[in-house]
């Protein structure tokens, strides 16, 4: 046997293993959420529109919704805003905003200026609900089904490709729900 056969075979095996690893690695910087397939965390937060009124996970149960984590301090959120408006206009699924560690006045100003894509916005001043959702960088978007299960999560500004290829196909025909 050629004395180089073993080292070359080992090297080839290493190349194959690393190639598989690179091919199957998730998108760079994307971390798979452990919440996928599990119930969304419970929350009860004041509504931006009416702070006396609470937005709760219990009330949202029973229909599909897209939970979008944003903040006026978040540069990338501005980049996705137009896409959120477009998504709202398709009436495919209601958008619920989670305003993460933000200033209420600024948030109102932002929505007045750029348009309000959300059915309701929950205010998370402390950031604890965002942490329960495993949020590590806004914007993040969660698709939650009628049973309150997290179906899909996207990190980063929502793009048309993500909307048409990842979110729309996951929605059942009647997901628009009552609004």
């Amino acid at each position, binding site marked *: 046997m050629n004395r180089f056969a073993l080292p070359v075979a080992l090297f080839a095996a290493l190349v194959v293993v690393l190639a598989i690893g690179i091919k199957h690695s998730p998108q760079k910087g994307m971390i798979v*959420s452990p919440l996928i397939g599990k119930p969304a965390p419970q929350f009860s937060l004041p509504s931006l529109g009416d702070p006396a009124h609470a937005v709760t996970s219990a009330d949202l149960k029973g229909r599909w919704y897209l939970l979008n984590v944003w903040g006026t301090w978040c540069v990338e959120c501005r980049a996705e805003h137009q896409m959120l408006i477009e998504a709202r206009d398709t009436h495919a699924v209601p958008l619920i905003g989670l305003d993460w560690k933000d200033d209420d006045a600024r948030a109102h100003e932002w929505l007045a200026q750029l348009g309000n894509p959300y059915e309701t916005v929950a205010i998370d001043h402390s950031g604890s609900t965002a942490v329960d959702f495993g949020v590590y960088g806004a914007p993040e978007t969660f698709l939650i089904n009628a049973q309150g299960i997290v179906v899909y999560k996207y990190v980063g500004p929502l793009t048309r490709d993500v909307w048409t290829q990842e979110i729309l196909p996951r929605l059942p025909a009647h997901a628009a729900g009552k609004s």
Partner: protein
Amino acid sequence: MTHRLGTLRGLLVAAAMATTLVAARSWAVDTTELADPHLQARYLALTHELRCMQCQNETLADSPVELAADLRHQVRDLLLQGKSDDDVRAWMVARYGDFILFRPRFSLRTAWLWLAPGVALLIGAGVCWRIVRGRAALVDTDTDPVGEDAAQTRDARG
């Protein structure tokens, strides 16, 4: 005289070290102090082995971003509630996944990660053993005298 100088130098070194320590403390990202020194030690150990999800290559303890501060508060609160280290890790993993642990847990998925160094060591040892055995086998077939033997042979011949 030299003795005096030695003492003086020792004092200066000690003063410099103390200054550095104090400075390091005041420049540290995280200045949280728990009243119970035992809890404080566990707090430091945990925040040094949990990843800041935003910066990804820094620990919670080292990261200046707000999310890291929020998660450090969570670690502190959980410890104050009497949770164990494993409870704190499980709390973090439930939200952020295994990625938050700088020291991955042993599972079917991470088995290769933990076992690969041992396997590599075994392969290395095997290769070493084969080479040594191969060289040892050469001695039997080598008929040329070496070193002292060679000198003795020469003397005997002479």
